[in-house]
């Protein structure tokens, strides 16, 4: 039975005190963190689909260069002529695939959705610290996405300099061919940065100041720890990108020369600014995934997380070291080779906390009582695939080896192993896991398993061979590999990857169908379908507005007390369950709440 702290008159939240809300207030301009999380979910899944469609076109061109693409006829002549993708469209595809996937799919799916949805629920709070700012965070993110999308509909199309936007190519419309589209990229990023900062201010403040009594720092689930550290990364990294994007925009529009060597600017300045943001960004893209995977693996193993404190310190270690490694993206850039040495050292070191996490996940499964529900399948696949992605990173970290593989498909393989094999598999675990909490229904387990296995197989068929293609020397962002004699022998492998990619994409339709169909037809969810310990499962499904308001739950133990001897016959022991031996936590003597 959940024990609650004495009720406190709450300025916000507390459904009993609210006047009935209109449809617009309740679902559209909602300040409820759960609704905002769901809004992020729908919008981001759309952008994920868009990113996938862009990838399909890229793969068509690389696999079958110069051949007319099926369905190419629907695209305008500026992009596709007689069904054949044009080079100028190809580099837009490459740029926008990366941009949409990083900024509008993976980041908002991990952070916009799960930071918003889970943080108050897992801490026993009624909502975020600043619900209205939270609402603005969503609408700004949506606005940013629409601005970016608009690039496809302006003359000369979108930006064409790769998602990494290297100057001077990105700063010179006369050299890249992109005009308005390039400016839209910059504006979109500045708006997205604002959204991110607003969200992060909420997440950090809520986690510090709004934990229920008994929810000490080291009783927080790893998903929340990861989201906390991620928010700190975001709040410090995004503004640097905003600054860089503004400088880039000014170079294009008002005649500044930040990145123009002719007038005294420096091309490498862009790279330093971008990667100083960019490296923490990739940890933003993986840490929440790692956190949620920890929660799900403990649940699936029916065992406490192995080495909880080490896991926390590993998250902090990864985030801290993440600020010191940005130069490993620039080993070939012409920066001082001595810097190459220092960045190599820091980069090799960051492998260590990641390794700790992998071994701890394995330790969690060791001697567990493993339940292979769909979230667990995907979470274990995460560990397996992230390991490959992380290990491939070691090749690049060793600077001499980076020489032949930098800017080749070896890098593309690495980044997709960590972002798809890692982050996306973690999302395939998290989405069905918290779906009942969001929508009151279960996603279909059988469809989930079919989706999992088919995705796992086709995904590896697509991305593993890319390591070989990269070793063979195929450069990135290459419209037609067959121009080079040394690449021609690999072309059959490119064709194989392309066909596997089409299969991989088709399989995702199973997930999309399952997600949408289950909204209305999914099995009605019991209150705690996964026998989990988190605070969120002490609420009905879907969770009500205000969560526990006007009350606040009490927390009696850590988040992973599965198979605890104190649990009796059950193999789980919720954080908020009061045992006869438990004493109520004392509320803080010095008040900290803002509301």
């Amino acid at each position: 039975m959940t024990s609650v702290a004495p009720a406190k008159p709450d300025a916000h939240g507390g459904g009993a005190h609210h006047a009935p809300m209109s449809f617009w207030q309740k679902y559209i301009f909602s300040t409820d963190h759960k609704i905002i999380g769901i809004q992020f979910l729908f919008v981001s899944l759309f952008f994920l689909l868009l990113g996938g469609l862009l990838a399909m076109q890229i793969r068509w061109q690389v696999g079958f260069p110069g051949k007319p693409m099926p369905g190419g006829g629907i695209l305008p002549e500026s992009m596709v002529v007689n069904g054949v993708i044009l080079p100028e469209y190809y580099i837009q595809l490459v740029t926008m695939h990366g941009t949409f996937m990083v900024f509008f799919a993976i980041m908002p799916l991990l952070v916009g959705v799960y930071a918003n949805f889970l943080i108050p629920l897992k801490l026993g709070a009624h909502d975020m610290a600043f619900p209205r700012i939270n609402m603005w965070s969503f609408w700004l993110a949506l606005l940013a996405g629409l601005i970016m999308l608009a690039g496809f509909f302006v003359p000369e199309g979108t930006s064409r300099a790769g998602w990494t936007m290297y100057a001077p190519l990105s700063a010179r419309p006369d050299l890249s061919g992109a005009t308005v589209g390039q400016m839209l990229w910059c504006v979109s990023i500045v708006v997205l940065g604002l959204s991110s900062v607003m969200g992060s201010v909420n997440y950090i403040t809520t986690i510090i100041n709004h934990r229920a009594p008994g929810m000490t720092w080291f009783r927080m689930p790893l998903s929340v720890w990861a989201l906390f550290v991620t928010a700190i990364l975001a709040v410090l990294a995004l503004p640097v990108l905003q600054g860089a994007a503004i400088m880039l925009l000014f170079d294009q529009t008002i005649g500044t020369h930040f990145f123009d060597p002719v007038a005294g600017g420096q091309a490498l300045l862009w790279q330093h600014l971008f990667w100083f943001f960019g490296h923490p960004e990739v940890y933003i893209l993986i840490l929440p995934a790692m956190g949620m995977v920890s929660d799900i693996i403990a649940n699936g193993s029916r065992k406490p997380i192995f080495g909880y404190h080490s896991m926390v310190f590993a998250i902090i270690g990864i985030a801290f070291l993440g600020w010191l490694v940005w130069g490993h993206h620039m080993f070939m850039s012409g920066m001082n080779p001595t810097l190459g040495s220092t960045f190599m050292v820091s980069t090799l070191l960051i492998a260590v906390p990641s390794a700790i996490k992998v071994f701890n996940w394995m330790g969690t499964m060791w001697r567990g009582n493993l339940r292979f529900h769909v979230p667990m399948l995907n979470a274990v696949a995460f560990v397996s695939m992230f390991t490959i992605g992380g290990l491939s990173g070691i090749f690049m970290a060793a600077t001499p080896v980076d020489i032949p593989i930098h800017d080749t498909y070896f890098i593309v393989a690495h980044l997709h192993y960590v972002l798809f094999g890692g982050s996306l598999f973690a999302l395939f675990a998290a989405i069905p896991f918290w779906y009942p909490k969001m929508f009151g229904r279960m996603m279909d387990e059988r469809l989930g398993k079919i989706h999992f296995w088919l995705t796992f197989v086709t995904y590896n068929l697509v991305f593993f061979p890319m390591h070989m293609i990269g070793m063979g020397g195929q450069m990135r962002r290459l419209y037609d590999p067959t121009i080079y004699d040394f690449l021609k022998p690999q072309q059959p492998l490119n064709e194989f990857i392309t066909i596997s990619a089409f299969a991989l994409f088709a399989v995702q339709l199973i997930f999309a169908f399952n997600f949408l169909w289950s909204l209305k037809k999914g099995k009605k969810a019991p209150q705690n379908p996964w026998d989990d310990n988190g605070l969120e499962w002490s609420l009905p499904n879907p969770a009500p507005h205000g969560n526990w308001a006007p009350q606040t739950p009490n927390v009696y133990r850590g988040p992973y007390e599965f198979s605890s001897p104190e649990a009796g016959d059950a193999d789980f022991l919720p954080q908020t369950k009061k045992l006869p031996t438990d004493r109520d936590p004392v509320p803080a003597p010095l008040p900290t709440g803002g509301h």
Partner: protein
Amino acid sequence: MQTSTMIDAMRPPSPAEPGAGVYSNKLGMWVFLASDVMFFTALIGSYIILRFGMTDAWAAPGAVLNVPLTGINTFLLICSSVSMVKAYAAIADGKKYFLRPVLGKTLRDGGLKFWLLVTILCGAAFVGVQVYEYIKLVEHGFTPAGYREGSQLAEHALADPIKYGAQTGAMFGSTFFTMTGFHGFHVTCGVIAMSYLYVTKVLPEKYSPQDYRGIETIGLYWHFVDLVWIILFTIVYLI
């Protein structure tokens, strides 16, 4: 005089784990300011890298910019920070009013309404002076793209390339307008925010010594903006 820990002590206890020991609005503002520090670091850091990466001479600031006028503007902004502190002290003492004559003295005793208005006006004046400065600079030939061809400034630069930094004018223009422009934007946002609070909360006397969190929070922002300006003024106008 009441301090911010007294504000916290005065609020009814809420069931929560001890957090930062400060109320959420203030914590949130600190976090936001950390992000703003990073934003200015990107701009100012780039300026430093670009300026000290140049082999040719950088203009003597006084040759291109109106340092005395901006010095006065700096003083104005510092005064607005002082008046912000006075506003905070006033509401902590319960002085919600505008002005009140002090018995037996010719001086008047300012309340929150007075001191916050002074802050807003000083802030607005700062922006006004900066806009005026920009107009004059562009007229003279100093633009984000550098020294405009055929302008007075361009002629001076031809005559004395070292003092006017003829080779580095483009970078000077790029960095100057971007850094000071975004600072001015931040000041403008602060003025707007304070005006909004003035109309919706200060005039209707919604702040009290028991709860003046909004004043403290916007005060933090305002001091930050002032601090950034002091740094900018030093490294752009003086050095």
